[in-house]
């Protein structure tokens, strides 16, 4: 059974702009799905339909086998982790209270909240002392980590992320991506991740959904999209950037494995790449 299922979903703002034009998609448990596309293609709208931050016009959506409209909206949102681009940490709360926000909404005892917050800090690689700090005392990358920890607090099966790493520098972003992959492996949750960055989509997604003007152009693994594009749009969109991203990752992984096994030295790797 699919965790999330979209069937012929459409959405229009006003009379003119069709944001979504008949989406069909099934997301299986444990998938890391990246929604890729240019701004305005409908990827964020699609993401926000899942936790009912945005409504849709026609079609059907099921979450864990239940129609979206049958879910109690508050319960649904508490069971889905949500990270937005600007993070939206609560400036008047300590990191502890930010991370434990959903737990406090559910009335879970303070001691349990604290325990969970400590676990989560460990998971996202932040020191425990940070629990006492306020968001304004953290760097951009640290705030993103807190944002991720906050979304994970109630151990959600589904996590929605809307370009969460868009505002941090490249080095930090790479690190955060690696850690997110790690977390996904550890928790085996389902992640829907919106991005406009091809490299990011290729690196993170077990499956990529490429969207254009409210339609899905192709959904598949990175190899499928890059090596066997369904149409011209996909070919042009993924382009050399997609190819490089695929190549880089494959090659680097292979070489890195050899380095680890001490079959080859760093210098040899460098020479070979040259």
């Amino acid at each position, binding site marked *: 059974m699919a965790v999330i299922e979209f069937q012929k979903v459409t959405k229009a703002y006003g009379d003119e702009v069709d944001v979504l034009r008949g989406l069909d998609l099934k997301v299986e448990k444990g998938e890391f799905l990246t929604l890729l596309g240019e701004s305005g293609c409908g990827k964020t709208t699609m993401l926000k339909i899942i936790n009912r931050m945005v409504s849709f016009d026609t079609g059907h959506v099921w979450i864990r086998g239940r129609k979206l409209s049958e879910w109690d909206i*508050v319960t649904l949102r*508490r069971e889905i982790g949500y990270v937005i681009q600007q993070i939206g940490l609560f400036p008047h709360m300590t990191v502890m209270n930010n991370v434990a926000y959903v737990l406090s*909404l559910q009335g879970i005892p303070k001691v349990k909240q604290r325990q969970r917050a400590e676990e989560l800090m460990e998971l996202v690689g932040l020191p425990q002392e940070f629990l006492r700090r306020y968001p304004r005392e953290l760097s951009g990358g640290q705030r993103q980590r807190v944002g991720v920890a906050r979304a994970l607090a109630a151990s959600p099966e589904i996590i929605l992320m809307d370009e969460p790493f868009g505002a941090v520098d490249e080095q930090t972003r790479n690190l955060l991506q690696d850690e997110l992959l790690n977390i996904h492996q550890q928790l085996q949750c389902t992640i829907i991740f919106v991005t406009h960055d091809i490299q990011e989509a290729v690196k993170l997604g077990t499956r990529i959904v490429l969207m254009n003007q409210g339609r899905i152009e192709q959904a598949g693994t990175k190899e499928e999209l890059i090596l066997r594009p369904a149409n011209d749009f996909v070919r042009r969109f993924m382009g050399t950037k997609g190819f490089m991203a695929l190549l880089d990752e494959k090659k680097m992984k292979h070489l890195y494995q050899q380095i680890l096994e001490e079959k080859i030295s760093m210098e040899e790797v460098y020479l070979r790449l040259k």
Partner: protein
Amino acid sequence: MLISRIFVLYRERSSFFVELFIQHLHITFLAVTLITVIGLTVGILMTRNRWLAGGILRVTSFLFTIPSIALFGVLVSLTGIGLKSALIAIVLYGLLPMIRNTYTGLTEVDREIVEAAVGMGSTPAQLLFRIQLPLAFPVIFSGFRTMVVMTIALGGIASFIGAGGMGRAIWRGISTNFPEMTIAGSLLIAALAIFTDYLLGMIERLVRYRYLGEGGEKHEA
């Protein structure tokens, strides 16, 4: 010396002034409580309905432009002389800063913060009490401070329609051509207003520090 005569007056008529001062505090306290409750409620309701918000802001701004003496005059013919009329007038004036700052404070909370809170499953009440009100608190509090000082000053005029308070000393001074009495009454009102403003100002700085970090960012109301 005028000043020394005023102090003599304070000493000789101390029980009179103490009584008026307590009356003044009483009127101010009643008015501030009413304004705070009504202002907060209306300000919060306004955020639920933008159309309503525009209307209420216009009406309260209009009320604010009516000269207080004129408003007192109208109210005397409607609700008679006494504390009730005075309270109605003072409350109508004080509502503007309270409503406006509550409304502005709530609507100025960052959209992404509200989105995050809603998206994580806050109920409307949880959103209001855990996120919006605390974050709007500095702005609301500065409106509260303006309102309190204004209410103290307006209380001086309220005595003219028989509500008691320091205004009675002023009124008596004017009607019996006794300037020391007028000045003595005015000074006490001014002292109360300045002291309260100072006290609330200190609290406001603490609040800003608590919510907005060191220095705090300025909010124009």
